Each structure stands twice: as C-alpha cells, then as structure tokens.
C-alpha cells in the first residue's frame, strides 16, 4: 500500500513540476534556440542528479525516528503549502495556473531576437533556473519519500515515468501542456504529502497510531475531508462577498 502511494505521489508531483518546467524550456527553445534550451535542461538535470545521489544516502544514514521526524515534518510543511495553494485556486481566491499565459510572458521577456547558433546566456540561465527550481521540489519528494521507506529507486522510477511522459508529449505537441489538470494534481499530491507527513512526523515525536500502518488510510480520508470542507468554506465566503 505504501509503495503504491509512493509511486503515485512522486509521479503526480513530478508531472506537475515537469509541465511547468517544459513551458519555460519551450519558451527558451523557440526564442533562443534549441541548443540553448537543451544544454540548460541537461545541466540542470545533471545538477539535480548530483543532489539526489549526494543527499539520498546521507539522509538514509540517519536513525529511523530522527529521519521520520525531520522528513515527516518537512513533508507536512511542504504538503500544506501545496494544499493551501490548491484550495485557494479551487475556491477562486487565487488565479489558476495558466501555462499558455506563462509561456507568452516568458517569450515576451526573452525578446524576439532570432535564435543564433551559439548558446545564449540569458536563455540558458532562464531554462537552467526553471528546470532546477521545479526539479528541486521533485528531488526533495523523491529523496525524502524514498529514504523513509528505503525505496529511493522506486520513488525515482515514479518521477522518471512522469519525466518521460512529459518529454514525449512535449516533443509531439511543441506547445505548453495547458490541458493538464494541474490544480487537481497539485491538490492530490498535497493530500498525499500531508498524510504521509502527518503519519511519519507523528511516529517521529513518539505518537503511536491506532491500527498501525492502516492509520495512514484514516489520515488520508481525514485530510481529504478537511481539504474538501476548506474549499466549500472558502467558496461560500467568496459567493457571499460577490
């Protein structure tokens, strides 16, 4: 059960972040040339690989209760951040993520100079930063989720599957993937991160969950219920104000 959620969480989180990164890479590729876009992407992925290889085994060496407390606490904070954004978007208090608009903004910011044969410094920086920053969240989720369950490989597999999917679709459509239900995915990942974070951080501070591992399902249902009620509550407030 844990393995299933592990793959689902890393796949969905990676999908969301990769779609955002793809938008930036496409904008750089079209305005500054594909050489710039691909070299920046490759450098950023290499940097992320070094981070995962460097921190993965390091985190795994921590004693299990300490690992669960640190990782659980961080996942909890991270999950709540994702949930907050998703709930605010679902209730209309925050604008939905619009990949087409972001793509247009990036293209405008990069300028309309025809792409040259050499690597463009500005384009490289934008693509590198975009892939690295979006990828860091994925790396964090892969390393922490994987390390706590001693399944970093499985977690990385979920992320890799999402990366392959986004790259293949991106190569075919050659435009931002604006039809991916990003907010729903983000909410789903937020629920999973918050639930796992609650469970592990709880064990880390010495709480004994009733039902053992099965408590995770109860926590998942509880977080889902709270998220749904939060959306309804905020929507009612927005409607009253309107």
């Amino acid at each position, binding site marked *: 059960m844990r393995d299933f959620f592990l793959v689902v969480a890393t796949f969905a989180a990676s999908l969301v972040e990769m779609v955002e990164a793809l938008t930036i890479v496409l904008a750089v590729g079209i305005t500054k040339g594909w050489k710039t876009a691909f070299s920046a992407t490759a450098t950023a992925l290499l940097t992320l690989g070094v981070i995962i290889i460097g921190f993965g085994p390091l985190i795994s060496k921590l004693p299990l209760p300490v690992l669960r*407390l640190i990782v659980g*606490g*961080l996942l*909890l*904070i991270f999950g*709540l*951040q994702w*949930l*907050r*954004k998703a*709930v*605010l978007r679902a209730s209309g*208090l*925050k604008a939905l993520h619009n990949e087409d608009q972001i793509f247009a903004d990036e293209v405008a910011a990069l300028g309309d100079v025809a792409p040259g044969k050499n690597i463009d410094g500005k384009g490289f920086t934008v693509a590198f930063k975009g892939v690295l*920053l979006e990828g*860091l*969240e994925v790396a964090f989720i892969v390393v922490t989720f994987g390390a706590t369950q001693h399944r970093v490989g499985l977690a990385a597999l979920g992320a890799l599957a999402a990366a392959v999917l986004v790259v293949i679709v991106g190569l075919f459509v050659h435009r931002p993937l604006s039809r991916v239900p990003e907010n729903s995915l983000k909410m789903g990942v937020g629920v999973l991160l*918050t639930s796992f974070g*609650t469970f592990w*951080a*709880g064990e*880390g*501070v*010495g*709480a*004994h*969950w*009733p039902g053992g591992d099965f*408590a995770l399902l109860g*926590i998942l249902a*509880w*977080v889902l219920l*709270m998220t749904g009620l*939060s959306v309804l*509550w*905020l929507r009612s*407030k927005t409607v009253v*104000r309107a």
Partner: protein
Amino acid sequence: MTQQRSWMVRVYDAVFDFLIGDDWVLAVGTVVTLGIAALVSLVMASWWVIVLGVPLTLVYSLSRALQLKK
C-alpha cells in the same frame, strides 16, 4: 563585498521560499503541533494532537489569505 552579499541574500531567499513558502504560519503551526504532540506523548497517546493541529494550521492560514483578499 556587495556582490557576495547579494548572492547570499539570493540563496537565503531561495531556501526561505522553498521551506516556508507563501505563508510562514504553515511552518510555525507544524513545528508547534509536533512540539505539543511530543510533550503530550510523554504522558498519554498524542496522535490526536497532530490529527487536530494539522487541519487547524491549514484553516488558519487559509483564513489569513481570505482576510488579505478582503
């Protein structure tokens, strides 16, 4: 010196944004909830502290966002 400082400020901003995000209440609420749960677990079962503290933290953060929008 100024260049070095601005580089450090940028790194600090990136780390802060990564860990704290849009609302610091989420991070502080999480730490406080876990702290209380750790203390409670010394005398009795403490899982319920986390189960209540986490959604309360989220709801408080959302209510702050709602207030800011008003």
